[in-house]
């Protein structure tokens, strides 16, 4: 089982390297753009990463409207 697991981690790592190349190749000259590479999550497949770390559920909020808001008067 450990060999199987090691093979899986290696495959995930290889996929990560490919993904980094792609992410860094799009808009490379844009000002201060993000850069991507090896970190603690590189041994995870994206679906594993999502299943472990991306567990927040979306919620819908009302759109903010400045109408109906009372301005705070100038007080000390």
């Amino acid at each position: 089982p450990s060999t199987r697991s090691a093979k899986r981690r290696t495959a995930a790592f290889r996929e990560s390297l490919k993904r980094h190349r792609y992410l860094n190749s799009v808009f490379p000259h844009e000002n201060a753009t993000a850069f991507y590479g090896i970190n603690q999550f590189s041994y995870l497949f994206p679906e594993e990463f999502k299943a472990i770390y991306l567990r927040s559920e979306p919620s819908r909020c009302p759109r903010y409207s400045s109408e109906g808001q009372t301005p705070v008067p100038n007080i000390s």
Partner: protein
Amino acid sequence: LPLRFDWRDKHVVTSVRNQQTCGGCWAFSVVGAVESVRAIRGAPLEDLSAQQVIDCSYSNFGCSGGSPLSALIWLNKTQEKLVRDSEYPFTAQNGLCRYFSRAQPGVSIQGYVAYDFSDQENVMARALLLSGPLVVTVDAVSWQDYLGGIIQHHCSSGKANHAVLVTGFDRTGRTPYWIVRNSWGSSWGVGGYVYVRMGSNVCGIADSVSAVLV
């Protein structure tokens, strides 16, 4: 609006936490906001218990997931007092909710507000200045590989899957950005933080924004 503002400069933001393999980002973001707003009001800056929210917020699913807005609704409705992290430490797994006596010191919230600020990120920045760090949800699929710089692409609005805390913004350069505290430890990103472009609702950062009143 100032060109740059970061609540960290006022020493009211606790250090970056590590949720480990627990899907409790929703709890860490809410607890982070409570810690900061309490410190802004003059109380000492202290780590509060995210584990308490993970175990006790019955409308959520602990380490299997949850929503920061549900956690805020729960905190507001039950007036649960958040105790210190040292009293109820993080275990990275679901546990039975521990109850404390009324005499136990803790922090309850007085309320919260939640809005969709998409197309109104300047107003969101004003809310950050007025209310303290903001709890937001984002699409963080591409954050798996993030090392630094300002995220401007490779994520979508309307597809939130992660909750984080916005502590500030920087508009001094050509690309204005939000300063965002994550909960994946300080070795991830820029000391545990990530920068997200301001003004185009990148990663849906303005879709669901909550502020806590303490």
